[in-house]
């Protein structure tokens, strides 16, 4: 039997008891005897207990016994009100000489499990004083097959599902029902009152109990929250030596010197990742596999044709820098401007391929790290397959597509202003 007893605080009792004693002394004098006042404790309390058949008993006890030797009697009153988790309620009250115990019962209902609350109301009537000594309350509670998994946990943390209020019942097994698929279950024939293990997937945990008037299967939610800090960050742009950039397994060669239609710069995002996984042994998620860590191996590489980094090259020198929107609209961009805008085109945060990649990467809907966090393989399934079938490829494709959108050309600035023509071979002479 498990129960709690809550005894009311004493001050009011002292006050009422003092008043009673004063009047009792007067009363005693009136009946012709005087004696020293004995020690006396007016007490009330409640109990909530489970019977062997699963019925719950609520008890309210009032003890208003007067001091010994006073040759007096009090009338004790008690009311017991027992309330079930679902709101079933049973009330009993009564009165007795000096003491009274009120009991009330709620029959076992396998669908109405959890914490039962008992509320007691107490008073005692002192005929000598012609008044009630007090009106007091007490309370108690008891769990009946109350199952909890301890609230929400972060994925990968141990959850402890514990059954309390078993009484004389017997645990015959545990079950986990997957909250996502609704179908995959983990079972255990353990007769223990706890079932614990690493939690990675939300769902329902239930425990089978026999031994009461009917079998019961209390259940509760196992709530697993996503871990934080899993978002992948943008890879910083990394300039590689001219003519060494590898993209899609091929070295990208930029024609030198550039010609009309050729590329003066190139950038490539190589998206990739690695992960570690762990299969859980024991508890509600036994057999599930989850990702314990994921690493972003994405690189962003870019290069620029050497003719634009070598300020003495013929191509660089051919960029006359004589463009004037009004007075010389057919003029050429300068070499410095062309080099800067080529870099802007490849890695600028505004009107640059890297910026487009960065924006797409920062869109949480595309974030591969966040996808990894939630990937789970149900028992028997391969986490490798789950990874391969996840939205990671789609997210990568979204990022790649965004990165391919052409920013303003290399002879424009990031605001779209034209900066002059590019002087290709055969070069026109600068004025």
């Amino acid at each position, binding site marked *: 039997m498990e129960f709690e007893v809550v005894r009311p605080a004493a001050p009011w009792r002292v006050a009422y008891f003092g008043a009673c004693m004063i009047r009792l002394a007067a009363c005693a004098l009136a009946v012709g005897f005087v004696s020293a006042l004995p020690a006396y404790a007016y007490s009330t309390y409640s109990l909530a207990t489970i019977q062997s058949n699963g019925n719950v008993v609520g008890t309210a006890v009032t003890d208003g016994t007067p001091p010994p030797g006073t040759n007096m009697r009090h009338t004790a009153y008690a009311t017991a009100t027992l309330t079930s988790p679902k709101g079933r309620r049973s009330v009993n009250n009564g009165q007795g000489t000096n003491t009274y115990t009120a009991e009330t019962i709620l029959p076992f209902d396998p669908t109405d499990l959890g914490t039962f609350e008992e509320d007691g109301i107490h008073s005692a009537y002192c005929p000598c004083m012609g008044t009630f000594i007090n009106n007091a309350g007490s309370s108690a509670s008891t769990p009946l097959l109350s199952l909890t998994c301890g609230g929400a946990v972060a994925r990968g943390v141990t959850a402890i599902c514990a059954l309390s209020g078993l009484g004389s019942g017997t645990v015959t097994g545990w079950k986990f029902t997957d*909250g*996502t*698929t*609704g*179908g*995959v279950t983990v079972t255990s024939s353990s007769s223990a009152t706890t079932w614990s293990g690493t939690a990675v997937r939300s769902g329902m945990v239930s425990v089978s109990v026999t031994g009461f008037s009917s079998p019961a299967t209390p259940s509760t939610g196992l709530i697993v929250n996503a871990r934080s800090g899993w978002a992948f960050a943008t890879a910083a742009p990394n300039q590689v030596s001219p003519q060494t950039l*590898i*993209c*899609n*397994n*091929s070295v*990208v060669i930029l024609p030198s010197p550039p010609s009309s239609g050729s*590329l003066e710069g*190139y*950038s*490539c*995002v*190589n*998206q*990739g*990742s*690695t*992960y*570690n*996984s*762990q*299969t859980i*042994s024991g508890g509600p998620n036994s057999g599930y*596999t989850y990702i*314990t860590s*994921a690493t972003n*191996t994405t690189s962003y590489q870019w290069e620029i044709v050497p003719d634009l980094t070598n300020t003495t090259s013929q191509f660089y020198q051919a960029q006359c820098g004589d463009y004037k929107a009004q007075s010389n609209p057919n003029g050429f961009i300068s070499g410095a401007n062309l080099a800067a805008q080529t870099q802007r085109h*490849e890695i600028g945060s505004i009107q640059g*391929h890297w910026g487009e990649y960065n924006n797409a990467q920062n869109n949480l809907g595309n974030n*591969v790290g966040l996808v*990894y966090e939630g990937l789970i393989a*149900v028992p*028997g*399934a*391969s*986490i*490798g*397959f*789950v*990874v*391969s*079938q*996840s939205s*990671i*490829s789609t997210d*990568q*494709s979204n990022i*790649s*597509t965004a*990165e*391919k959108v052409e920013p303003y050309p290399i002879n424009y600035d990031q605001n779209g202003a034209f900066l002059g023509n590019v002087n290709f071979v055969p070069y026109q002479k600068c004025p």
Partner: protein
Amino acid sequence: MQTSLALRVATATIVLCALTLHADDKYVLDLTLPTAIVPHPESSFGCGPRLSSGDHGELSLPITPLALEIVNFGKRAYAAGEDLISQIRLVNVGKESIRIPWNPNSDYGNKDCAAGAKDITRASLTASFALVFTGDDGSKRNVPLENLYGRLSTPDTFQVLHPGEAATVKFRERLGLPIVPPDQPLGRRLDLPQDFTVTATYSLDDTSLGNPYVTVNSRNQVKLTVERAPTQQN
């Protein structure tokens, strides 16, 4: 090393045993045999999907010369939770040979995720098979089958399928249809029995290439009835 050798022998045994059943195909891998079962490791390292793309032009994904078809499921109806037996056939309908992984042991998967481009001898092959169950309401549920792995430095772990050649893999997989389809909100339940239209998919990644191959969908589809499990309550 001993484990590796044992697995190679087991794989060879599997192929030899199954060849008598599927004489038309050059390669047959029977993963329904007990000796073919490779338990998943408790903890593992893996390479995620990869994608390499430059800033110009369309995304370049290689196309496999493979055609995929479901040979059969052994019978027309299965109960949920029952072991589903499926045979899936790969046919090289192209003009070039292709390497396909041929071992269920994930140890042959890629351990150096970027090895392909740097060192082809360390490159690896990974293939994922899946069955796609399309229900009456159009919702789709994926049933993953065993992955196959191969390492280019270990010839026994992969096969080279030349034009016109075919390979069949026979799977045994518990039919654990997700009750909630991945593209639907929770609460949408799976009503059984139900007739499904089943197709297959094949995803192949050869890390010696820049990007994974485009996923192949089966060119045929098969009707399959899924019944309630004998102990299923709802």
